[in-house]
């Protein structure tokens, strides 16, 4: 036994075995190199969507609801895997900047921006986030996108454009003695400015003079109180849509002047008629586009579109108060008739 211990402790032997053992350990370590575990599934990240309505408006809200609904249809459900951040800038550009910046900081996956002024700011700040816009009249003309078929940028959306001719046609169908029409709009609103120009051009075909009536506040309406017009046109800009409609319609009523409205809400409030865009539907279509983007497509692969077909809304009450009768052929193709 002493022999045993003597040899075990023998210096050279120990050293030699040390070397052998060392190589062994190396080998074993090499073999047991931890297998890179299957890439840990990234925790389901919640989709974040920022919504910037620009102003608070019933029709806009319906649009947004439809938008969300359409997304939910394809699996992006609020509260489950989708978070919506909605903030309205109340028409204040500075606020809008802050809101959009906050979306950028939150690294949202998509921004849904309403109105042209709102979207112009959105686009300038969120340069790397896909933007779906809606309730924009002239995205190409205002520079939001390059073309309807391809935006060539991170924006795509749905526009609430109805051809000026069609709009006028609805009015003419009811009331054809329109020689002068007052175009009431928010001063310097980009859409309205373009629309005015187009309306004026279109008016030429009908021997119609379109008078520019820009206002920046309700007070300024008084400026045009003396203008003799045969009809009013309510533009689709946000001022009109938020504050202006009621006042202007009241004024029109008082002066017994028919009003052609760009938006549905105007007719509901008392404008005579309009070929309008169903904003709810517009929201749904915007939602479709958002869904496509969230599942991998890029905005420039999608088309920016408007409503297909007309959506004529006519207010019979207003017509009656104006002493006008609405022909059947208009009623036949009206989507909404307000009694």
């Amino acid at each position, binding site marked *: 036994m002493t022999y045993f211990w003597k040899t075990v402790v023998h210096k050279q032997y120990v050293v030699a075995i040390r070397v052998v053992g060392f190589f062994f350990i190396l080998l074993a370590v090499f073999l047991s190199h931890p*297998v890179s575990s299957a890439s840990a599934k990234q925790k389901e990240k919640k989709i974040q969507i920022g919504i910037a309505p620009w102003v608070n408006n019933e029709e806009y809200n319906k649009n947004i609801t439809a938008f969300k609904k359409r997304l939910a249809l394809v699996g992006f459900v609020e509260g489950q895997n989708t978070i919506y951040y909605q903030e309205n800038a109340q028409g204040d550009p500075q606020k809008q900047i802050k809101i959009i910046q906050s979306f950028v900081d939150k690294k949202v996956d998509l921004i849904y921006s309403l109105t042209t002024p709102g979207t112009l700011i959105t686009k300038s700040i969120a340069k790397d986030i896909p933007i779906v816009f809606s309730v924009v009249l002239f995205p190409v003309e205002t520079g939001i996108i390059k073309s309807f078929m391809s935006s060539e940028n991170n924006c795509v959306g749905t526009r609430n454009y109805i051809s000026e001719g069609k709009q006028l046609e609805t009015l003419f169908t009811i009331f054809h003695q329109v020689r002068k029409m007052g175009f009431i709009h928010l001063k310097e609103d980009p859409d309205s400015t373009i629309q005015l120009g187009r309306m004026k051009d279109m008016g030429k075909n009908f021997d119609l003079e379109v008078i520019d009536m820009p206002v920046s506040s309700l007070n300024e309406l008084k400026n045009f109180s003396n203008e003799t017009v045969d009809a009013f046109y309510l533009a689709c800009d946000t001022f009109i849509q938020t504050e202006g409609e009621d006042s202007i319609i009241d004024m029109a009523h008082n002066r017994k002047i028919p009003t052609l409205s760009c938006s549905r809400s105007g007719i509901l409030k008392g404008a005579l008629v309009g070929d309008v865009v169903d904003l709810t539907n517009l929201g749904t279509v915007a939602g479709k586009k958002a869904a496509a983007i969230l599942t991998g497509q890029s905005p420039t692969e999608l088309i920016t579109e408007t409503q297909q077909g007309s959506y004529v809304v006519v207010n019979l009450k207003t017509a009656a108060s104006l002493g006008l009768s609405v022909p059947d052929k208009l009623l036949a193709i009206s989507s909404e008739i307000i009694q």
Partner: protein
Amino acid sequence: MTKQKQSILEKINIHPKKLADRILLFLVTMAVGAPTFVGITFFLMTHTQISKAISDLTTQTKITLEAEISAKNKELAEKISILLNERVKRLHSLIVAASIIPEVVDLNAEYSEFLLKKFVYQNPSFLEISVADRRGQEIVKVSRDDIVLKKDFKVISDLAKFADSTEAKSYKTEVKISEKTGLPFIVLFQPIERYKGRLQGWLIVSIDLSYLWDLISSTSVGEGGYTYVVAVNGQLISHPNKKLIYQGKDPFADVFKDIPINEEGTIKTKKYLLTYVHTTYLNWRVVTVLPLEEALKPVIATEDLLSSYLKGLLSKMGNFLLLISPLLFFIGTIIALFLTKGITTPILKLVKGTQAIAKGNFSTRVNVKTDDEIGVLATSFNHMAEEMERLVQKERELAAAEAAADTERARSRELKDAYEKLKRTQNMLLHAEKLSAVGQLASGVAHEVKNPLGIISQGLKYIQLKLNIKDKELQKDFDLINDAVKRADKIIRGLLDFSVPTKLELKPADLTEVIDASVELVAKELSLSGIKLKKEIPSSLPKVMIDHSQMQQVFINLLLNAVHAMPKGGDLIIRCYTRNIDEFTEGIGRRSTDFFTVGDNTLVCEIEDHGHGIPKNILPRVFEPFFTTKAPGKGTGLGLPVTRSIIDTHRGLIDIKSTEGKGTTMIITLPVVKGEKHA
């Protein structure tokens, strides 16, 4: 660097020198290395096999899966195809129905306009509808998205050729992209007939094919897959990437380059699995595109799973190896050690055996019982030892016999020697006893004699004084008597010195002290006689057990003798040195063997004078008590005997060497204190 390397290599030193270690190292390496190596190789081989099996399996599965998916997708495409056909056909039938409405047949513009408006309102897929006369002149036109001004009425010249034909049939155009909308459309031409053969005009409908998109994209081809539709002219009708439609690029144009539109089937490109069907009525191709990655996801997933499982297995094996290596190592070591022990222990036994033999122990046998080569070696070794033992035994017997004879002789000699020694000792003892007895007697006598001597001495003076003798001659006679008394006293003193054994106080001392003291005492005598003293004494003498005063007496005596031997002066040498007894010498009346054995250390002192020497005939008698060559009254004759006696009691030897006329040397040999180094 190389120096470091060298030192490291030295330190590691994988080349053990000992046989046992070498064997050990080999065995352990084998014990651990071999199975590990085999295990790893085996495992790697099986791993390769398993990997191959997995990949074969997955390939097979992939093929199967592909076929399945293709079939499924083809079915899908067919469904879409059918639906497309139906849709468009339905629209066509609507148009046909519209074309027979009397107002339309009458080419009643106003009513027709209303009708068409309604038509468009109800069917948003109609982009534009117009009614043209026989020659192709549009008389009514309605647009879905805009008003149509009179100036927008066109003449469709192509229709003119049908003007007088009786066989006008509805036909459709190729798929084109609308400049206004940017969307694909076709134009359907439906002849308006009053009655068969009588062409009235045409109902021209532009169908916005984009309304088909929902239909096409409503079906799912699988994740990452899609369906697209392409017209025979290559124009994309539907595609997830709308941009491509506008640009008109069929992404798989190359793939379908040589395949006619009416063919159906499956194609696998590098990345995609395509199935294509023919939409008969519309003459379109419906293609389902599925990324292979997606299609084969389940298979790939399984493959990955298996691979990772395999890897896991491999790592488990590695862990197992890591755990088991030390165990194997330990077990291997123990086994190896026992094996080596089996080899080296017998060898060592043999070594011990040879060593024993070398020492002369011929009875050693090596106890190795193994059957192997070493066992054979051990057996032959034992035989050799046996032979040697026998030889040695024989020799011993011879030697013993001789020795016996020798011993006899030696013993008889020994006996004789012993006998003689015994005799001598007896004589000495007798002699001593005699002397002792005599001494005691003498002692008593001496003391008694002293008293009367004392009386005589005092009495003489008394008489001198009492008688007041003034006569010089008489006084001289008184002096003579006094001298005689003194002489008597001296003799008695000498006798007393000689005979009374004084107590010896033996102490280890340096003889130099004694010599120096003695010399000092006789210094006057030396100088008086003009004797030159030379000392040949080493600086340090080993200590001897002596009685200081007794030894002093000895030296004084001898020095005085020397002085008396050189009345006219001369050299007197005192010489001391150590000597190791290597031969048997004789002292006067003693043999060195009496006190010393060979190998003893002794201190020798010689007192050499260059006097008249001692004649040979007197030399043996100098140690006789009362023997003196001096004139009566001058010497007692007891000096040398006393000296010898003292030396005896010191267990030393005294010897004389003398040449008449040349000088005398007295040689004293004393035993050195045991432990003292040879100086």
